[in-house]
């Protein structure tokens, strides 16, 4: 069964204090790994898709990396507006549509 585990559950940072969020996964052949940001009262907002080990993607202060067993979301010099829940999801290989399997997320709070 495909599984996603995110750690830590919650993370509090000072503004400018860089850190990383972890997403460990088990999947029967990875089609893609996805990172989303979710603000309170809103739906998840798509950030990145990673397809193969060694791949990296960046967007502003965020950088996502992928290995065969886990992904990291690195946050460099975060700002208070980066406070949100960050969700990781995997999609398995297969014919036709393969559903996304989500982790429970990491709640990030960045204090000024």
């Amino acid at each position, binding site marked *: 069964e495909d599984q996603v585990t995110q750690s830590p559950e919650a993370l509090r940072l000072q503004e400018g204090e860089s850190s990383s969020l972890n997403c460990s996964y088990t999947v029967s052949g990875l089609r893609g790994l996805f990172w989303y940001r979710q603000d309170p009262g809103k739906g998840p907002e798509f950030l990145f898709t990673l397809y193969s080990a060694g791949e990296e993607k960046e967007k502003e202060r965020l950088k996502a990396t992928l290995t065969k067993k886990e992904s990291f979301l690195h946050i460099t010099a975060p700002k208070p507006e980066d406070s949100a829940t960050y969700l990781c999801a995997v999609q398995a290989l297969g014919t036709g549509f393969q559903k996304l399997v989500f982790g429970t*997320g990491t709640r990030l709070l960045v204090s000024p």
Partner: protein
Amino acid sequence: SAVISQKPSRDICQRGTSLTIQCQVDSQVTMMFWYRQQPGQSLTLIATANQGSEATYESGFVIDKFPISRPNLTFSTLTVSNMSPEDSSIYLCSVASPGRGTEAFFGQGTRLTVV
């Protein structure tokens, strides 16, 4: 990315009643998805809705409890039937990125409280 609008954004309902949630997309999409996000838990896929065919339900979800309509390529509804407090959750509509079929995009969700 597609723009997805959900109605209502939140509701408080009496147990035993039903609520229909609407999802409107600003472009034609083949597949639409309905997720549930219970407090402190991950998003869980309820069903996949294709236009012109019956929805496909995930394990643990049944059509009698969560009937879905998909009358055209831009619209879908999810009904939560005979509600109980355990149905209190956020319900999210999602579509796959047009032309790419991998990334999923989400509406803002419907926060349902059953009392």
